[in-house]
């Protein structure tokens, strides 16, 4: 296949081999780890800043505005300027706050998002870890972030934060289920949990099309549930600026607040990546049946571009949610999960299992 020319495993393998030739095994691993850390740190920062900028632009366009346009060309450095501003802000420690948890919370949200990022395949051979239970791992890790939010709200010794924390508690106990079950639908179809293998299985067609109806339902449910899971859009109850001023991060200032902000956007990126990987074939190009010429052209587009494009589309959809819908109330949040998403999900899994058993999928 032509797009195999973009195989990154040979590139990483080459780095590995050349390092091994140059130094001892311990230092090889050490150097590789440092390289990995630096690469992901840079990636994390760039994606975070770009997403904040993108969100500002997208919402501005939806609201008939221009958006950031002062710092740098097209306001591209606005986020950087904001970051620098936040760095220079005083970190205020609230009276009688639970100091340890208060300081621990930003660590937890960032660590959770970093861990989830580790397992995402950006292109063939371009992933940090490729666990055989990759999907399960991502689900588990990404739900840790909400714990950070809960801790942040609880430890702040502010009433608004506490209500925000309680709300995020309600969010934990509902939307994790739907995320898991909607991904389970695809696992039934794929028969594996390894993310690289899931992508590989979509070589001849994305799961969204392969699994037709149940996969589409699962995709929609995943979008809804994951939006709730990352505390965004109509589900930003823990933050709810019109009700709780700023909810869980009311008392956070300066760079600590920035980390919550950053983690929110990174979580959005991770969720979009998972959706792209599991439903839209990750870095696999779009192939349509027997249109060989078309398929061939598609193959020449680098896989990373495919991956980024798909992720961007899903991020756009998640942003669209936020800038269109009113916020749900807390009891509606639970009603939506338990009375709508969960029953539909359970039914959907059975439907998919049935389809797979009968061999009716593509």
């Amino acid at each position, binding site marked *: 296949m032509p797009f195999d020319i973009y195989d990154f495993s040979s590139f990483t393998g080459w780095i590995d081999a050349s390092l091994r030739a140059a130094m001892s095994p311990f230092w090889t691993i050490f150097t590789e780890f440092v390289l990995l850390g630096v690469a992901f740190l840079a990636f994390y920062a760039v994606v975070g800043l770009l997403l904040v900028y993108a969100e500002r632009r997208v919402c501005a366009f939806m609201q008939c505005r221009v958006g950031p*346009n002062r710092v740098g060309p097209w306001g591209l450095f606005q986020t950087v300027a904001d970051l620098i501003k936040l760095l220079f802000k005083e970190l205020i420690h609230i009276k009688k706050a639970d100091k340890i948890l208060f300081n621990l919370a930003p660590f937890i949200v960032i660590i959770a998002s970093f861990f989830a990022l580790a397992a995402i395949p950006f292109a063939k051979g371009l992933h940090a870890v490729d666990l055989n239970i990759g999907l399960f791992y991502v689900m588990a890790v990404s739900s840790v972030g909400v714990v950070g939010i809960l801790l942040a709200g609880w430890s702040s010794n502010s009433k608004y934060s506490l209500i925000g924390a309680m709300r995020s508690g309600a969010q934990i106990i509902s939307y994790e289920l739907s995320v898991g079950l909607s991904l389970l639908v695809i696992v039934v179809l794929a028969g594996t949990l390894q993310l690289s293998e899931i992508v590989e299985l979509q070589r001849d067609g994305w799961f969204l099309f392969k699994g037709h109806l149940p996969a589409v339902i699962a995709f929609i449910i995943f979008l809804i549930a994951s939006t709730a899971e990352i505390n965004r859009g109509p589900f930003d109850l823990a933050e709810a600026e019109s009700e709780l001023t700023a909810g869980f991060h009311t008392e956070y200032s300066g760079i600590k607040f920035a980390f919550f902000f950053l983690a929110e956007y990174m979580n959005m990126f991770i969720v979009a990546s998972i959706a792209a990987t599991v439903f839209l074939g990750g870095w696999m190009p779009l192939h349509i049946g027997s249109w060989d010429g078309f398929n061939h052209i598609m193959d020449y587009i680098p896989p990373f571009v495919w991956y980024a494009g798909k992720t961007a589309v899903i991020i756009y959809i998640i942003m669209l949610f936020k800038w269109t819908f009113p916020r749900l109330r807390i009891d509606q949040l639970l009603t939506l999960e338990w009375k709508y998403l969960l029953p539909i999900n359970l039914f959907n899994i059975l439907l998919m299992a049935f389809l797979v058993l009968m061999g009716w999928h593509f």
Partner: protein
Amino acid sequence: MLFSYIKGIFKGVGTLFTGMGVTTSYFFRPWTKVTQKYPENRKELKMVEAFKGEVTMPHNANNEHSCTGCGICEINCPNGSIELVTMFLVNEDGKKKKAIDKHIYHLGMCSMCGLCVKTCPSNALAFGNEFEHAVFDRTKLTKVLNKEGSTLKKGVE
């Protein structure tokens, strides 16, 4: 019951999509933007004629105004933002005549009600279109409306 449940889901999702349609359509129509880039468009930015920016006293080319110093504007101002310092001039006939020395206007206290302009018997006052009044020092908002060395227009009583 099951039917209405399913119908409810479809109807609800449908309304969500119509809402998303509105925002998306604006997203893809950049020409609907209404933002004005303010300091850049200063040149084109023209306030309408009636805009009440500040109270001014128009002077003609000979540095003449038509304020007789009657004090009606001072009485009519609800906030006390106009103060008149008057003096007596002796004209050619040797008669003493009241005239303004300083027409002091406190922009910071003005609420742009327009009573001074409306009630002025000799139409000496008018609204100016200036709207960039920001200053660092509050005292700069106190202005003297009649210009240095200005005199009363001929024929204004």
